[in-house]
């Protein structure tokens, strides 16, 4: 039992669930307190001591089912079937119980003359838990933990069988049957026994194979899971399926939570001011100058403001969907935030984002949000000019201006001076460009003209890049 739990702990660790040694010890202590017989209670005891994150619970449940039940049940099924399907040479089902009774009597008669290996004994007496242990040990010794793909299942099955000397056990059992025949057991019964032995051996082979396959599944589960997550993080915003969009949304939501956290810490630090001596003396005049009431200087909270300009032209269609999603989440975090979308004209979507839920909002915004025409060619210069003309008042020295776009200007006038003016007024200007820096300034990209007015310009195509940038954005 102890070893099985430790093995299970290792399995959890491999799947990315962090289980410390202290927690494993807790598990043992906990299992002393509850009855292990109740499967549900057993599972809950393991879960409460080992798994500490809600996100890990599905992983735990999956592995628990895989590890703690499937195999023993499978083993029982296989042997039950073997026992039931056996027929004595004439097609009548074997009465296993009667046969076993007879066998026991006979064996007692020939004390000492039979020599059976543990495996053979377990097979004959159908001691399934012992059998399970034997298979587990043998599999371990054959190195099944290193299994990597389907093609190796056969190989490890064979090795495990060799390891526990299944062939030897089979031989011993056949010899036993032979001896029984010599000892005067009726032929029909010995035939039935022989038949049964063959079936048991086959069931054993199947079970070992099953065990190996399951092992493969376990090893692969964490591997596949990790692989899936990693690749999702690295994947560019282009070409995403529905399912991936859903997962991405979860990650962005987490990201937004993190920003919220950073914000709250900042707020708290700011709250603690210095001792305000003047006010304190004045307020404590009533107590004869004895400072009963302590007064601190109240510092003003520095709430960051954010203005976002998001390109929704067709060239960045797939990226902007996620950029907009990011914008939407940001809007939930910041109180003072204004969002704009542009292609050539510029339109504000702040209210739109506030009213609608995320999917509708993004659809609407991609459609121009009823404020701009999206079926034109993008013109950054014009959009910046409009922003400068109409919304410059929205920018002050506490404002961060965030531009999301590829700066592909279709050879229009870049009007870099507009952005420069904005930059002069703003706290800082951040530009996230889905194209890599090597492409900036080539072709119709006017990124190079804007760069002098941008404090932070980053390539941002996927979540990993985005999450790195987030820190800089808030600070």
């Amino acid at each position, binding site marked *: 039992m102890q070893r099985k739990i430790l093995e299970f702990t290792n399995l959890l660790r491999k799947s990315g669930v*962090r289980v*410390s040694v*202290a*927690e494993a010890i*807790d598990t043992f*202590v*906990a299992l002393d*307190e*509850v009855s292990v017989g*109740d499967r*549900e*209670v057993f599972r*809950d*005891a393991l*879960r*409460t*001591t080992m*798994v*500490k*994150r*809600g996100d890990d*619970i599905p992983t735990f449940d999956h592995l628990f089912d895989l590890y703690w039940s499937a195999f023993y049940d499978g083993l029982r099924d296989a042997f039950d079937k073997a026992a039931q399907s056996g027929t004595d040479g004439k097609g009548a089902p074997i009465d296993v119980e009667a046969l076993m009774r007879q066998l026991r009597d006979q064996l007692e008669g020939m004390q000492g003359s039979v020599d059976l290996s543990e495996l053979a004994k377990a097979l004959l007496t159908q001691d399934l838990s012992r059998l399970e242990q034997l298979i587990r040990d043998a599999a371990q010794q054959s190195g099944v933990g290193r299994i990597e793909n389907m093609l190796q299942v056969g190989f490890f099955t064979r090795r495990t069988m060799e390891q526990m000397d299944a062939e030897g056990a089979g031989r011993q059992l056949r010899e036993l049957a032979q001896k029984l025949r010599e000892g005067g057991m009726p032929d029909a019964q010995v035939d039935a026994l022989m038949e049964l032995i063959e079936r048991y051996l086959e069931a054993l082979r199947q079970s070992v194979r099953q065990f190996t396959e399951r092992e493969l599944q376990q090893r692969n589960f964490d591997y596949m899971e990790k692989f899936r997550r990693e690749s999702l993080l690295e994947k560019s915003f282009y070409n995403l399926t529905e399912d991936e969009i859903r997962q991405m949304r979860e990650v962005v939501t987490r990201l937004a*939570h*993190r920003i*919220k*956290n950073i914000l*709250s*810490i900042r*707020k*708290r630090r700011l*709250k603690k001011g210095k001792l305000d001596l003047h006010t304190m003396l004045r307020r404590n005049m009533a107590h004869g100058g*004895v*400072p*009963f009431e*302590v007064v601190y200087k109240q510092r003003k909270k520095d709430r960051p403001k954010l203005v976002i300009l998001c390109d929704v032209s067709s060239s960045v269609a797939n990226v902007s969907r996620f950029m907009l999603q990011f914008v939407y989440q940001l809007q939930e975090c910041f109180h003072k935030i204004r969002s704009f979308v542009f292609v050539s004209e510029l339109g504000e979507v702040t209210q739109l984002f506030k*009213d*609608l*839920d995320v999917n509708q909002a993004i659809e609407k915004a991609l459609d121009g949000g009823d404020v701009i025409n999206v079926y034109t060619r993008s013109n950054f210069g014009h959009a910046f000019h409009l922003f400068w003309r109409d919304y410059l008042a929205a920018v002050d020295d506490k404002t961060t201006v965030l531009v999301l776009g590829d700066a592909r200007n279709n050879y229009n006038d870049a009007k870099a001076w507009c952005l420069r003016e904005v930059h002069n007024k703003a706290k800082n200007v951040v530009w996230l460009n889905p194209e890599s820096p090597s492409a900036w300034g080539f072709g119709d990209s006017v990124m190079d003209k804007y760069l002098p007015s941008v404090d932070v310009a980053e390539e941002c195509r996927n979540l990993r890049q985005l999450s790195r940038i987030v820190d800089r954005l808030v600070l």
Partner: protein
Amino acid sequence: MFESVEDVQKRLGEQSYICDKNIATVVFLAGRLEKPVLVEGPAGVGKTELAKAVAKATGRHLIRLQCYEGLDEAKALYEWEYSKQLLYTQILKEKLSEVMAGATSLREAADRVGQEDSVFFSSRFIVPRPLLAAITADEPNLLLVDEVDKSDPEFEAFLLEVLSDFQVSVPEIGTFAARQKPLVFLTSNDAREMSDALKRRCLHLYIDFPSQELETRILETKVPGVGQRLAEDLVGVMQRLRKLDLKKTPSISETLDWARALLALNGTSLDESLVRDTLNVILKYEGDIKKAHGELGRLIARKAEDEAGKAAAAGAPAPAKKASLH
């Protein structure tokens, strides 16, 4: 404290807290292992209620610490009663000058005052806040640290000392160790992830939305006036609502509120107009309500379908009420 997992279920049931085996197991283990429990889950599934029910079931005194952004040691652990100290120095002024009388140098005077230090930094001037109160209490008690995720990360650091050793250090006095280990419950809405160090010291319990059957039982226990029929209908609609993509998914507390509201309106069965009128009891955002309005027909129509299916399965004619649902 509790005899067995079943005992937990039974005694919490007596406090009209209906729970599944998972919750009962964790509560049982918490009592046996003397470990804090970190309870996580969506808002309104009864995390705080669990702690209260356990306190009642075990007859322990409940000490509650509500966490919020900016909560610090002075509010959570202990605080020096500054004005009382000051008051004492004012009153004892004469005594102090007596002590200092005859001192020839400033240093000597300071030394003499220094000897009396412990008078002003003793437990007399400490205001115990919930954590210290839980530690120093004579009676066994239950400490509830509510919404621990709302506190700042620094706050976790001194929670650690309390949770692992059940002791509190006050630099000027020394360490207070618990006479009775309190039972500790921490609740979290997952606004931020707690540190691993904290999690390692706790048992973890994740309470999710209850199953239909469990929710019906809870509803019948908590709102006795509600008939079985209405309870089932209500829970059915709630369960379906939770499958929608809502900003704030309604939980058990909303179910209970809704049932009470319907009772107050003398509603005995759910029909579309009644649901429409009372939807704002369970949904707290304009967008959510709009969305639910759109789905309303489906929510209730499906109920009718379910019923029809059930009736067909039972071989009985469909209930007459079904007609009014369309």
